[in-house]
């Protein structure tokens, strides 16, 4: 920054709206980018495109004819691409020729269990992280909590799941070992998925609290006679949270990635299983559909996160003028 700060006011009025428009544009760009990269990457797979789109196994010549029509394979690549984009814009994710089912249906049926799992895992992760950050900052407990967080972040998700099953499922018998549909069956998978996330979130929160604790305003707050509890709850925790909330998109992503493993470990139905089956069976239309869906999911989450971050840290809203 060379010339000094822009004095606010005149430009400030329409900023929130144009920022929202900018972000929506960015969101469309991410989804479009993911869809495009996915499309061309799949077209790079050597071999007859029809065979590629079928995946493992064989289908009748009638279905092959159907595929050529669905994807406009007789047309040049550019036309195929535009055709594909046009379908996406209409919300049509295509058909799985292996499963003889529209991709949207395949995904839609399995969306609910995965979202339940991710949601509960998120709740557990936030609670665990907050507990670690607030109570793990004494002289005694810091090294211990730090080590705990390090192990939580480092241990492979699927191994955590296996250990939890061994101990709480087979050993103590507290929770059902196989998916039974009840809430009890959701607890172990959700904890499994939550532990690495809680480790990351806890570290970031703790670092945020430590970083905020040496900011100059802390002196001012203490000079007002504020207690330590007040200082943390009213002031520094908010700084730490504003810092951590930008991680939400990343966390949602890791939860979705992790659900592939957790659903396998616990033999649960869900999006992760759909994805894994599609990958092993090379069911390309489903793979493409999941890529697009994931892009939409992250974009929406990041949009929400951006808006929340603005409320938590008002400086963000004007930051663009200073960058």
């Amino acid at each position, binding site marked *: 920054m060379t010339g000094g700060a822009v004095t606010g006011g005149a430009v400030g009025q329409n900023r929130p709206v144009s920022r929202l428009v900018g972000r929506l544009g960015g969101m469309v*760009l*991410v989804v479009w*980018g*993911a869809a495009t*990269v*996915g499309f061309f*990457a*799949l077209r*790079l*797979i050597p071999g007859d495109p029809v065979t590629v789109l079928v995946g493992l196994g064989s289908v009748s010549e009638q279905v092959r004819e159907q595929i050529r029509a669905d994807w406009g394979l007789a047309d040049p690549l550019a036309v195929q691409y535009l055709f594909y984009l046009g379908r996406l814009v209409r919300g049509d994710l295509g058909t799985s020729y292996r499963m003889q089912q529209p991709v949207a249906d395949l995904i839609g049926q399995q969306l609910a269990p995965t979202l339940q799992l991710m949601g509960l895992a998120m709740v557990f992760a936030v609670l665990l992280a907050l507990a670690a950050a607030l109570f793990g900052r004494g002289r005694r407990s810091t*090294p211990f909590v730090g080590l705990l967080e*390090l*192990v939580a*972040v*480092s*241990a*492979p*998700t*699927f*191994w955590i799941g*296996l*250990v939890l*099953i*061994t101990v709480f*499922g*087979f050993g103590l018998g507290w929770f059902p070992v196989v998916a039974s549909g009840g809430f009890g069956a959701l607890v172990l998978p959700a904890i499994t998925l939550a532990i690495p996330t809680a480790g990351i979130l806890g570290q970031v929160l703790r670092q945020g609290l430590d970083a905020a604790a*040496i900011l*100059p305003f802390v002196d001012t707050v203490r000079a007002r006679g504020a207690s330590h509890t007040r200082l943390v709850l009213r002031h520094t925790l908010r700084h730490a949270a504003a810092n951590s909330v930008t991680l939400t*998109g*990343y966390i949602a*992503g*890791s939860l*979705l*990635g*992790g659900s*592939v*493993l957790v659903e*396998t*470990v616990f033999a649960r139905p869900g999006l992760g299983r759909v*994805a*894994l089956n*599609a*990958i*092993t069976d*090379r069911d*390309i239309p489903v*793979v493409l559909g999941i*890529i697009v869906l*994931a*892009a939409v999911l*992250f*974009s929406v989450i*990041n949009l929400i996160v951006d808006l929340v971050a603005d409320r938590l840290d008002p400086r963000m809203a004007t930051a663009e003028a200073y960058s």
Partner: protein
Amino acid sequence: MSALTATKALAKRMPTPGRGATVGFWAAVVFLAALVLAALLPGLFTAADPVRTDIGAALLAPSPAHPFGTDQAGRDVFARVLYGSRYSLMIGFGATLIALVAGLMIGAIAGLSRRVGDGVLSRAIEIIMAFPEFLLALIVIAIIGPGETSLLVAVAIAVVPAYARVARVQTLVVKRAGYVEAARTLGVSPVLTVLRHIVPHTIGPLLVMATMGVGTAITAAAGLSFLGLGPKPPTPEWGLILSDGRNFLATAWWIAVFPGLVITATVVSTSTIGRHLRLRGAGRGAGATHRAGRRP
């Protein structure tokens, strides 16, 4: 400015790693060194064969003869974990090295090029980074098909954007530093300036990141082969061993628990070493953090 002196004195005392941290660092170094040795010469540590089946010795609990017990085919789990370290370390180090070099190049090019070039590259990085690493690796495998080499490539591609982003940001920061401007006013040529001032400052943080990244890459690779997307059984590979163990949790917990412990210890070690390097690097480069003068 006396207001700063007090806080500065405090800040100076805080990040010095304590005795515990130093012990942890050396423990991590020793563990990793032993693991590398085991990967190179597994015969030094065990006489057992990791692949030969012996049904008579199936599902034996840990004992002095079989420290980690035996699996459903009577193979020694300890031997399988030792031989498996070769695959995991190769993928971990290999993928990280590829990602580091590719990331540095992409990031530096983005950071040094003008608006349009940087805009396109950083947008592309941003789009790819919207996907978490594990999901990205899954997608790459979906495209190129499962297998050992696929595993390496998939993990490498999945982490490249993270390195590229750090390299780009670091390049941008250093590019604007006073000393780069100073070199320009002195009349030092741009090529010399990049080599002398920008690259050394970019490579440091990337190396630290890579140290920690080895652990991430190992976990990701183990996860993928746990899902059956990597090498085929009976290859002694960490993810595969765990996948075997999944079917015997009720009767033979050791098949799954011990290999997982080794993976965790490996990742904890690389993280510990990485953090230690970062702390040391932060201390050395203290001059690089821009402290404001009396007037902001």
